[in-house]
């Protein structure tokens, strides 16, 4: 590798190299930014993606989670009259479902929240721009996964505000869907599953920034092309190098001696 030679070649075609570098920078900029005659004159070509998350508590009326031992509805018929009477006295006006039912409902509701009926409800208030993902909340603090009676609903958007708005819309649409289903099936209020919003929308986080790969590829391509052109032009029209006078004298002496 003859670095001085390479530098001499680059210096010989310095105008071409400068022009090529300017074009490479301009094209890389144009890949990143869009120019427009109308306002705003400059805007990014790629959008960022933000995500916000809401959490919904799957529960029922009367807050069964406040009981040390909630009076649950018996799953098997009472064997004798005394047991049945005791159960009826305990239940009174309160009837709680088995607490283990709610985490499994959360898993089911996560799928329902992403379903078409919920999307239809959302479309009543305009188009849906962004993705909606719902999942049951799983606690891993105990070392193994425990499903909690919570559903996390997250929405994405190109701005922070859009992500938060979509999350709130998706949550409201899902709650409305469940309420409509319960009303149309005439489920008594005390037996209905409730969806309590415990976190309306978390502060949005950036999940996907603008990629710098494409501008970089364009810049490198143009620079490579320019450098290739420069060396090919040099090979086509090699510059005759000036030889110092000492070297000429030395060569002459050498020729005379060999003759």
């Amino acid at each position, binding site marked *: 590798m003859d670095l001085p030679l390479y530098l001499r070649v680059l210096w010989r075609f310095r105008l071409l190299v400068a022009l090529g570098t300017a074009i490479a920078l301009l094209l890389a900029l144009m*890949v990143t930014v*869009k120019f427009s005659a109308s306002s705003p004159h400059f805007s990014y070509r790629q959008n960022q993606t933000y995500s916000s998350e809401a959490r919904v508590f799957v529960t029922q009326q009367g807050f069964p989670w406040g009981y040390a031992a909630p009076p649950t509805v018996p799953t098997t018929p009472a064997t004798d009259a005394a047991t049945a009477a005791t159960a009826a006295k305990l239940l009174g006006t309160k009837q709680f479902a088995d607490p283990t039912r709610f985490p499994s409902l959360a898993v089911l509701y996560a799928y329902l929240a992403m379903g078409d009926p919920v999307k239809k409800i959302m479309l009543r208030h305009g188009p849906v721009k962004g993705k909606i993902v719902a999942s049951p909340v799983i606690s891993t603090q105990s070392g193994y996964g425990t499903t909690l009676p919570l559903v996390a609903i997250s929405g994405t958007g190109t701005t922070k505000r859009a992500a938060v708005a979509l999350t709130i819309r998706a949550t409201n649409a899902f709650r409305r869907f469940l309420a409509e289903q319960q009303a149309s099936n005439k489920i008594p209020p005390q037996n209905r599953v409730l969806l309590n919003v415990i976190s309306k929308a978390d502060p949005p986080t950036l999940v996907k920034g603008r990629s710098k790969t*494409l501008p970089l590829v364009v810049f490198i391509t143009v620079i490579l*092309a320019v450098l290739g052109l420069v060396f090919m032009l040099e090979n086509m029209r090699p510059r005759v190098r000036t030889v110092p006078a000492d070297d000429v004298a030395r060569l002459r002496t050498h020729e005379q001696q060999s003759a």
Partner: protein
Amino acid sequence: MEVVQGSVERQPVAPIAIILASLAVLTLSVVGGVPLKTIAPVSCIVVIVAIAYRVALRWSSLIAFVIGWVQWNKRKELDRSARD
């Protein structure tokens, strides 16, 4: 006097034309707002091959390219099956 076998170095006209064409396509795509996800990498590869065609088109380089391509596709297939 003796005859020395020699050859004239061919002018690299075709590579220069390919490079200029790739640059033109890239520039028009960027200015025209065409999606560059395919055009930019292809232009980059074409330019690299046009510059270093003597190295890139050697049989050993081509075999290395084929092996690399097969390995890459195999890995992609494995990733896809693991995801499914």
